[in-house]
């Protein structure tokens, strides 16, 4: 193995999402002489990102004035909001729209398409963007600071041996590294541990977001309509709900989020999503339509209490790698962009990482998180108590002098003999996709099968000796892509990892009760190719 080739930049950004791209653009606007590169493991910018998404446009107004003259390809102004409480038996109740869900002035976008659009703006400013390359490791300087990243090797076979196409990953050296991998970034996970960045905060908590883009029968979609539902098909002990955003060209973006702090070991988040689509109100929109794209990604729900220290020697955590999403608004894009821009302003001004964390804590980004900090944890005691507490917090603008602690997700799962799920009144399904495998087809996810499995199981014995009896192998249920399967019985039982199905959502890394699953990046360019998601 020869010495790796080296490329040098002033700044390297890991992940071409809203925080990374906003940071890169802002850096070049403030200091055009800086050399800035963005590395992205998806085959193209936008391939690995998905979100509802309804965004607040203020950061766009600030970063790119006049952006509305050439808006991103999918960009529909919100016309009206509806909040629904769904009940079993096809019933529903319209609820008043809380202030955090009043979306007048906001836009429904495809986050992937918007990132591709941001990437064009960045390239016009001479940011070098490299999609199809994975940052596999951090490069450390002699004094232990972050000094850039190491690109993953390509052309390695399943046993770790070089194939004919072997290409060693280069090192990108940079005195400043921005970690903008999004939720549960694999490098962020390592850095948080190494520099003990979570020493003074609560554990991060997450939700799994699953989404489908549908083309429906003409007339069914009402462009600009933003709908959210709660209640059925979940029970009062699972946090979550759906979003239904009506786009143009007879398209509807429909999705479902479940808090990953659910207790029921037998629960199937993907199934809950599919059930929701069968409620008469939703079914009516989708009947006769076709699925264009589907996918899943974890979202960060810890907010203020779970925000780690965001600066370390040589690097910053920005966006959802830190966890800036506002849960009651279910919006993180404006926060991520603002965070990226704040980092850029700080780096342009000081040329160093020190002081960023303090600025972040003092910023409107964290003030916004602080105002709503008690809303998500209010639901730990069930839906109705949460609803009431959330209302109180909203009315008091989060000024009550208490802060509810946030709990971790991996310890929330109860053992199979300790939990019996309530009746959820789920129905027979007939809308596509038939199952998770059919859904994965629409995620267009692809991995060369002949490469090391990127889901590392630190202790595989646990699966067949302890987990099977204690939790009945929940990974086989919470993965939206059916990556994990248990095969055989008794002595022959084994964990089978269908790594090629993986959509890079990170749910397994989060929810595994033994925390033995370690998601690392596969070869660059693999994974989903989300379009207009």
């Amino acid at each position, binding site marked *: 193995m020869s010495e790796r080739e080296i*490329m040098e930049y002033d700044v390297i950004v890991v992940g071409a999402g809203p925080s990374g791209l906003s940071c890169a653009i802002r850096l070049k606007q403030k200091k055009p002489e800086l050399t800035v590169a963005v590395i992205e493991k998806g085959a193209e910018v936008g*391939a690995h990102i998905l979100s509802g998404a309804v965004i607040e446009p203020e950061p766009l107004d600030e970063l790119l004035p006049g952006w509305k003259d050439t808006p991103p390809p999918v960009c529909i102004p919100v016309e009206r909001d509806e909040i629904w409480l769904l009940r079993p038996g096809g019933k529903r109740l319209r609820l008043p729209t809380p202030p955090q869900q009043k979306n007048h002035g906001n836009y429904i976008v495809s986050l992937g398409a918007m990132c591709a659009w941001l990437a064009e703006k960045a390239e016009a400013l001479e940011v070098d963007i*490299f999609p199809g390359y994975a940052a596999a490791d951090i490069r450390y300087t002699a004094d232990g600071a972050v000094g850039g990243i190491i690109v993953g090797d390509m052309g390695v076979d399943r046993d770790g041996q070089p194939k004919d196409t072997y290409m060693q990953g280069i090192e990108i050296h940079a005195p400043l590294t921005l970690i903008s991998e999004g939720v549960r970034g694999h490098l962020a996970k390592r850095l948080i541990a190494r520099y003990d960045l979570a020493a003074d905060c609560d554990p991060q908590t997450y939700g799994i977001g699953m989404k489908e883009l549908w*083309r429906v029968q003409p007339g069914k979609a009402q462009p600009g309509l933003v709908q959210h539902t709660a209640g059925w098909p979940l029970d009062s002990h699972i946090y979550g709900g759906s979003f239904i955003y009506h786009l143009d060209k007879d398209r509807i973006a429909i999705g479902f989020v479940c808090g990953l702090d659910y207790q029921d070991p037998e629960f199937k988040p993907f199934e809950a999503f599919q059930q929701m689509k069968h409620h008469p109100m939703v079914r009516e929109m989708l009947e006769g339509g076709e699925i*264009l794209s589907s996918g899943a990604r974890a979202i960060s729900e810890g907010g203020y209490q779970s925000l780690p220290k965001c600066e370390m020697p040589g690097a910053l955590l920005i966006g959802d790698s830190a966890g800036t999403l506002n849960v009651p608004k279910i919006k993180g894009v404006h926060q991520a962009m603002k965070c990226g821009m704040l980092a850029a302003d700080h780096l342009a001004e000081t040329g160093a990482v020190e002081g960023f964390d303090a600025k972040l804590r003092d910023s409107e980004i964290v003030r916004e998180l602080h105002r709503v900090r008690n809303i998500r944890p209010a639901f730990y005691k069930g839906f109705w108590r949460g609803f009431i507490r959330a209302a109180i917090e909203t009315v008091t603008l989060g000024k009550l002098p208490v802060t509810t602690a946030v709990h971790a997700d991996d310890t929330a799962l109860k053992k199979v003999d300790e939990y019996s799920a309530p009746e959820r009144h789920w129905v027979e399904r007939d809308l596509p996709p038939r199952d998770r495998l059919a859904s994965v087809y*629409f995620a*267009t996810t*692809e991995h060369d099968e002949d490469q090391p499995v990127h889901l590392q199981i630190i202790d595989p014995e646990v699966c067949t000796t302890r987990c099977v009896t204690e939790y009945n192998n929940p990974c086989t249920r919470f993965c939206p892509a059916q990556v994990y399967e248990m095969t055989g019985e008794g002595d022959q039982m084994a964990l089978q990892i269908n790594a090629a199905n993986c959509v890079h959502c990170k749910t397994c890394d989060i929810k595994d009760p033994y925390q033995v699953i370690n998601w690392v990046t596969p070869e660059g360019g693999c994974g989903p*190719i989300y*379009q207009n998601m």
Partner: protein
Amino acid sequence: MKILVGIKRVVDYNVRVRVLPDGSGVDIDGVKMSVNPFDEIALEEALRIREAGNADEVIVVSAGGDEVQQQLRTGLAMGADRAIQVKTGEPLQPLSVARAFLKVVEREGVELVLLGKQAIDDDNSQTAQMMAALWDRPQATFASEVKLDGGKASVTREVDVGLETVEVDLPAVVSVDLRLNEPRFVKLPDIMKAKRKPLETVSLEDLGVAVEGNLEIGSYEPPQPREKGIMVEDAAQLMGELKNRGLL
């Protein structure tokens, strides 16, 4: 010797392609576009020939609007020396592409043309064959092996009954098949180097080629969806269902 490699910008092979609701075409809104996979194999072969010392220049060429420059830059990043965009705003059929590429061949004094055997969007498999005929030179298509020796090329072709080896005199046109090679990954520094390699734009008109179209697309239809089946309990029910459908 100069090698010309023709590349086409196509919908990425992974994309789940769908037909537009009105049947007028395929929905490529927001889809990922890539170099046609067979063209990548052709370029890889050209690079290997150059690296073996049997050629001194590899030129990639593509016909289309400015969007094809993205694929030409990929070609340069893989290792091509120069790129040429034959610029046109019109959709092109294989005959026009063949004529355009031939003009470049004549201008550059190219001795070996390597093309993908077919494009994965229209599956025509015509450009290589038409080029050879218009050029009045030999063709060796569906190549799974190419060996150069003096002024000749020995090409093993994948044909329906197995493998056939033909020997052609250069200059010639060779179209490549899947098993010829596995294209290399592009190194990051090479992407940067590719930005500085020459990419020339020449219009279709300046080459003296007219847009020809003797093919007219009628319509596009998605494959018929499979009908939902039923589960039968026993042989008697199976017989009944078959009879009901007039199959017995």
